[in-house]
């Protein structure tokens, strides 16, 4: 099959950037989106042009490195699929594809389709963990966890941190990402001691990074390659409100 690609090219953060069109005359329907870019890049290199920079690593949908917009949809048209596993058979002959990087103030473009998602790491660093130094753990079966809770925690923990939720959100909110971690840890007994502090600290960092606020539109859930559900945001909000309430200054403290 034949496809036309329109790709965002931007040399570095300072460059203004522009769309550039490329022909892909001989696309094998079994190849992935990234393999198509590989083939295109091989041609560009031999032509003395710079290949298109895009982020990728495991190419099996779990590392969270890859991701860009295809025709305005984060990770493209196939539900629950990252671009590395998106095979070309889902497009039709002659189609035009517009590839653009994640767009969000908190994700500055580094080059072409590569953006800086360091803000996600900083949100986790602010409190997205259970503080248990190596060596201090009780026996694994000491605290039984109902299967249902473990399963729900796992559903939330499946987040790969790719950033599609932010890119899809009209507010560029990172609510789904942040809430997935708050839910994963908050659903487990081990996560209870830090539950409220965690919500306060992670959300404080979230705001500092310049992500927008959540208005429950649900675009994030629609594009999430791991199908993280919107309910995690409700859970995050509950924890945040409860934490803010508990942490309010005492009335007679004089503060």
């Amino acid at each position, binding site marked *: 099959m034949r496809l036309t690609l329109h790709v965002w090219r931007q040399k570095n953060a300072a460059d203004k950037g522009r769309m550039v069109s490329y022909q892909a005359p001989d696309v094998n329907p079994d190849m992935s989106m990234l393999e198509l870019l590989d083939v295109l890049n091989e041609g560009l290199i031999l032509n003395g042009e710079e290949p298109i920079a895009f982020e990728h690593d495991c190419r099996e949908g779990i590392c969270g490195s890859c991701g860009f917009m295809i025709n305005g949809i984060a990770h493209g048209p196939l539900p629950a699929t990252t671009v590395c596993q998106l095979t070309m058979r889902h497009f039709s002959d002659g189609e035009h594809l517009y590839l653009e990087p994640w767009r969000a103030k908190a994700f500055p473009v580094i080059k072409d389709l590569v953006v800086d998602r360091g803000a996600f790491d900083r949100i986790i660093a602010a409190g997205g963990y259970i503080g248990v*130094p190596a060596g201090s753990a009780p026996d694994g079966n000491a605290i039984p966890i109902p299967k249902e809770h*473990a399963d729900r925690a796992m559903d939330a923990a499946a987040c790969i941190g790719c950033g599609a939720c932010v890119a899809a959100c009209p507010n560029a909110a990172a609510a789904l990402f942040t809430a997935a971690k708050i839910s994963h840890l908050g659903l487990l007994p081990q996560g209870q001691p830090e539950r409220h502090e965690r919500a306060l600290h992670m959300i404080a960092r979230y705001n500092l990074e310049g992500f927008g606020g959540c208005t429950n539109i649900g675009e994030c859930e629609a594009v999430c390659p791991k199908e993280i559900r919107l309910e995690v945001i409700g859970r995050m909000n509950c924890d945040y409100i409860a934490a803010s309430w508990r942490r309010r200054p005492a009335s007679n403290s004089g503060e």
Partner: protein
Amino acid sequence: MSVKLDSRVPHGPIEKLWDQARFEMKLVNPANKRKHTIIVVGSGLAGGSGAATLAELGYNVQCFCFQDSPRRAHSIAAQGGINAAKNYQNDGDSVFRLFYDTVKGGDFRSREANVYRLAQISVNIIDQCVAQGVPFAREYGGTLANRSFGGAQVSRTFYARGQTGQQLLLGAYQALERQVHAGRVTMYPRTEMLDLVVIDGRARGIVTRDLVTGNIESHVADAVVLGTGGYGNVYYLSTNAKGSNCTAIWRSYKKGAAFANPCFTQIHPTCIPVSGDYQSKLTLMSESLRNDGRIWVPKKKDDKRPPAQIPEDQRDYYLERRYPSFGNLVPRDVASRNAKAVCDEGRGVGETCLGVYLDFADAIDRLGMHVIRERYGNLFDMYQRITDEDPYQVPMRIYPAIHYTMGGLWVDYNLMSTIPGLFVIGEANFSDHGANRLGASALMQGLSDGYFILPYTLGDYIANAKLEKVDAGHREFTRAEACVREMTKHLLSIKGKRTVDSFHRELGRIVWDYCGMSRNAQGLEHAIEEIGTLREEYWRNVNVAGSADDLNQSLEKAGRVADFFELAELMCLDALDRNESCGGHFREEYQTPDGEAQRDDEHFSYVGAWEFQGEAAAPALHKEPLTFEYVHPSQRSYK
């Protein structure tokens, strides 16, 4: 300079060795720890857990990874599970049994003391991970669930759906980020180690390239830890992430660290077969599928009928036939070799005839569709996404692919390489798995090294070493920086007619054909010649696009492939030296009458550690003899 291999295994009964070693280790005063800077390269299960734990102890840690975030390390892709001798299932497991299985599974080419320690520590890992919030699978009563995995006859594998590696890695990553927040770890993402700096015989730092700005920088430390993973990508097509590479360990080898057993590579039996020339990687289908799937090929050659039209009596369930007691659960090396054998006989399936069926029809009849969906749903979905076939309806097609490398930098019992102050952990080292790794053991080893071994042994080194103060202006640093700059410049200046990937693909093909699932002396000699010719062409005819001072993915690849060329030669040399078959190393000349691997314990019961002798000279082979006091070497039998 000559390498001395002193394993530093303490003497005494095996179950007491680790306790004894820990007691004998010197401790670093808690107040002094922050004065010591430790570099950790790699942020996977080994590097991430090691960096976090060293920081928890109070060391000043600098952690480097080439990805945009430490959470992307390739440990994340491990699907199946992690072993631990908890015996929660009351089915006869014990530390000794896990130890025994691992030594035997490794075909008697690993160090007993290391393996025993691994089995001991396995139980602590599960506790640690549960406490961190790793959402392991649970039973309805709330206890941890287990399954049997990869050739084990007890249920000792803990798992989190088909994403165990992801969940364990996120646990380590979160522990690491907690230390970043506390100011005890400085994280350097998008930074690649390009050289090791050795001063007065000790590892004292690294030289890196900032992958965004192209800056070459020196980093000084009191010790360097490599947790940089395996070198499976030497084959080009593998189940490894595209970025996984051997550069850190290879350049350390060239600075004096011995490289052990490079020919011990693992071929995983259950991957999705290759479909075309453009293919960039191979996708693993978890080994856990073999618990319920039955592997077969048609009895007849060139049988092109769709699987459903092949009647039961014309199918050959070859693993069940040849290995009645283990059946489809034989270890990876055995399963892979048998798949190759039936395809070589012309009985392979699929378009390329390089594939065998993994059939769930019986399991679906017996357990119901819902059970299979619950157990393997995400894997079935992934298979369907890639192949466009529904494995609930038609059998999967699978074929072996390179998955893991047992070889790596040689380390002693304390995980220190032959360069004092250079520690190597996880897949990057050679220890524990011998000639073949058992399923669900890689995660165990990575976390064991990082959380529970390195923090002790590295402290002992720091406490004993009298380190002079050095800074980045030292001539060894400036010299290493100059070499790195020179190589970068050179690669960019060749401007030849072939891309890096085209060379890499061709190199991979050679290594796969001659140093893959089966090897012979003639083929290996031929491969060494071909690799040499191709490597020569590489340095003359490669075309690396772009410049040195910005994000340049072709340049990153070019340096890594240059190292793969050299490593490929050493792998073939090592495979040629080892005139026996063991584990993943199958030499066609050495097999039993029924086609199984034939070890030669009299002559080859050793770790082969290679020492770099200069670009023009052949590397020198040093041997660490292996002795087995607890598990007596026997012909591995899964019949």
